[in-house]
């Protein structure tokens, strides 16, 4: 809902909170259900009211627990029965500089201020550890906003006796803890209060009358910022940008003005603004956000514009460039399917309100930030928190590299006359063996997101996969593939259930990252080897057609299985005799779990 996206109108949200909630709940969308415990050091009611709205807008329906007024410490350290049975999925600690128990005095020595700092920090640290032990769930903790007055004036920030200095030091200690603790996040109210205006934010009448630690008008901004962390923790971040070109990535229309006529670079204020925006987008790419182009343009004009020598972005930075005269909603749907992501994980960036309107109407859940004027582009994208970082994994860093490596492989393929020579030149090494605990999460993830190279499309929850892992009734294989361009990670999973001397295949899937690499043959070789070791004479394969898995319709046929039945829905059953099987992979060197350290 646009009313709940940055830049939003707090006044409107405050006034219409009840009808907004009614509208959100009536939209019929399916939402994640989560429990959020709010431990407050001041009044939290309105914070929860707006947090609820922003989370609903991000696909999360939350149930809340709120401490009695200012009981955050008691609730954390001595949890009540009510709280224990509530079992929060996340704990938010709403403390502010109003909750600091003692500040330095002007007469204090350096040592005594250090002690004060340690004891203040100790109180919090003890609380965080207790919460982590009790609930085993993520914790969100406010840092501290700056004090609204400065006893020593400017010296307040540099003198150890200053409140400003004390708060900054305490914040640093919080950051060190956050840096080394998984599942612990800082809600940066120091930034938000500064951005809002510390003077208005800290209006003391709200504390003295209502025990709110900030002015009421600022609460929607506060809750919005907090909601971004929560939705990111629960996996609701966006994944890709679909960017318009003309008047979005540069000023002017490249088709009309020519490459030399567009505004980008250092020449004018306007061209500098576009350059700054391009640089921002390029940094998002480094965070692992996938960049694509969605522009009404001739393809060659689009590429020429991106090759402008003064631009920060280059055609190479984009995984997909859709520059044509099709409707944009259609291009975005195609981008989503080519990237194998859902359309609602795309953010569409376009200066044209008509295009934005169409895309918003046609693709439910897609985000369409207001891009009204180039000087606002960065802040309107940034503050919406589409890509809020909570867990920055190796995979994020490598995502664009992985796509890039795929492109390089494709380029090299062109130089080999014989496909087998090309495959051999990749120096592929696979690890194929029984599951290892360290890969279980990835294996489960693959079973839930692989749609195309997946013969049964059987989904497993983490618990179900654990059961398969611990049971003796299955033959399980995972496959990991490395080549000279990089490590593709775990890309294939095979599970078969034993029934006497027959193995019934429950699952055979592979990531489309490694299509046409003979990885499936290497998996089959290993499977047959394991079957023979365990006295399995027959492997029975099943194919259940879906809208997406047409590419493996004949997988078992290509493997050399014999088709034994087919029903009217296209479900097929295949069979292989293990005794006469000959290995089929000749291009990948295969290792086992002993190669994993």
């Amino acid at each position, binding site marked *: 809902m646009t009313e709940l996206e940055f830049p939003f109108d707090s006044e409107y949200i405050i*006034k219409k909170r009840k009808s907004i909630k009614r509208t959100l709940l009536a939209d019929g969308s399916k939402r994640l259900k989560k429990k959020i415990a709010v431990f407050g050091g001041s009044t939290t009611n309105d914070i929860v009211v707006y947090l609820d709205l922003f989370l609903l807008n991000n696909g999360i329906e939350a149930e809340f627990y709120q401490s009695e007024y200012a009981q955050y410490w008691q609730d954390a350290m001595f949890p009540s029965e009510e709280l224990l049975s509530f079992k929060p999925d996340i704990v938010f600690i709403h403390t502010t500089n109003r909750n600091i128990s003692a500040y330095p005095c002007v007469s204090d020595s350096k040592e005594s201020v250090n002690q004060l700092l340690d004891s203040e920090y100790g109180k919090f640290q003890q609380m965080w550890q207790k919460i982590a032990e009790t609930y085993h769930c993520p914790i969100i903790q406010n840092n501290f906003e700056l004090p609204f007055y400065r006893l020593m004036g400017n010296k307040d920030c540099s003198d150890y006796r200053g409140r400003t200095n004390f708060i900054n030091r305490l914040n640093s200690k919080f950051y060190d803890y956050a840096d080394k603790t998984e599942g612990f996040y800082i809600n940066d109210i120091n930034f938000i209060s500064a951005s809002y205006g510390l003077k208005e934010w800290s209006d003391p009448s709200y504390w003295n009358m209502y025990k709110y630690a900030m002015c*009421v008008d600022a609460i929607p901004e506060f809750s919005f910022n907090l909601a971004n962390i929560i939705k990111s923790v629960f996996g609701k971040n966006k994944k890709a940008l679909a960017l318009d070109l003309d008047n979005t990535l540069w000023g002017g229309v490249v088709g009309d003005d020519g490459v030399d006529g567009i505004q980008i670079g250092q020449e004018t204020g306007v061209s500098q603004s576009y350059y700054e925006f391009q640089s921002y987008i390029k940094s998002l790419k480094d965070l692992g956000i996938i960049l694509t182009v969605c522009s009404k343009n001739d393809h060659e004009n689009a590429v020429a514009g991106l090759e402008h020598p003064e631009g920060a972005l280059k055609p190479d930075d984009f995984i997909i460039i859709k520059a044509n005269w099709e409707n944009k909603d259609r291009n975005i749907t195609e981008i989503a399917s080519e990237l194998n992501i859902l359309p609602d994980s795309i953010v569409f960036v376009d200066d044209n309100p008509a295009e934005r309107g169409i895309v918003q109407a046609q693709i439910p859940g897609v985000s369409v930030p207001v891009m009204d004027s180039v000087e606002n582009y960065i802040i309107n994208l940034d503050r919406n928190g589409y890509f809020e970082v909570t867990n920055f994994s190796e995979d994020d860093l490598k995502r664009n590299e992985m796509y890039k490596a795929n492109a390089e492989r494709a380029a090299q393929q062109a130089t080999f006359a014989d496909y087998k020579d090309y495959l051999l030149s990749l120096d592929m090494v696979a690890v194929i063996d029984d599951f290892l605990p360290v890969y279980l999460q990835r294996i489960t993830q693959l079973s839930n997101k692989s749609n195309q190279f997946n013969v049964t499309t059987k989904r497993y929850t983490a618990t179900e996969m654990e059961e398969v892992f611990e049971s003796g009734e299955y033959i399980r294989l995972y496959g990991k593939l490395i080549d000279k361009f990089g490590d593709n990670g775990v890309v294939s999973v095979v599970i078969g259930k034993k029934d006497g001397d027959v193995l019934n295949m429950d699952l055979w899937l592979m990531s489309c990252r490694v299509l046409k690499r003979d990885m499936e043959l290497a998996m089959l070789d290993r499977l047959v080897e394991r079957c023979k070791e365990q006295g399995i004479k027959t492997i029975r394969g099943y194919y259940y057609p879906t809208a997406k898995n047409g590419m493996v319709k004949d997988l078992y046929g290509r493997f050399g299985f014999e088709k034994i039945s087919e029903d009217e829905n296209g479900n097929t059953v295949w069979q292989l005799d293990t005794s006469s099987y000959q290995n089929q992979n000749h291009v990948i060197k295969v290792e086992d779990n002993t190669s994993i350290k």
Partner: protein
Amino acid sequence: MDTKTIYARLNKVFRDVFDDDSIVVKPNTTADDIDDWDSLEHITLINAVEREFKMKFKMGEISSMKNVGEMADIIASRAK
């Protein structure tokens, strides 16, 4: 600003805040007359009234106002 206009605009604010189109405020209306009007909603209400009339209540006024009539009197003396 005349009293009639003040009540008309106040009425709209009350209906928005309490999400109830049946509300009709009168000078003697108090928190007891409106279901959702508790101390927490009071904060939202004061805030919305201040925005509507582009004025601020003083701290002392907020705690001493007895009914909508007193609120309207303060508005009449200060609103732009």
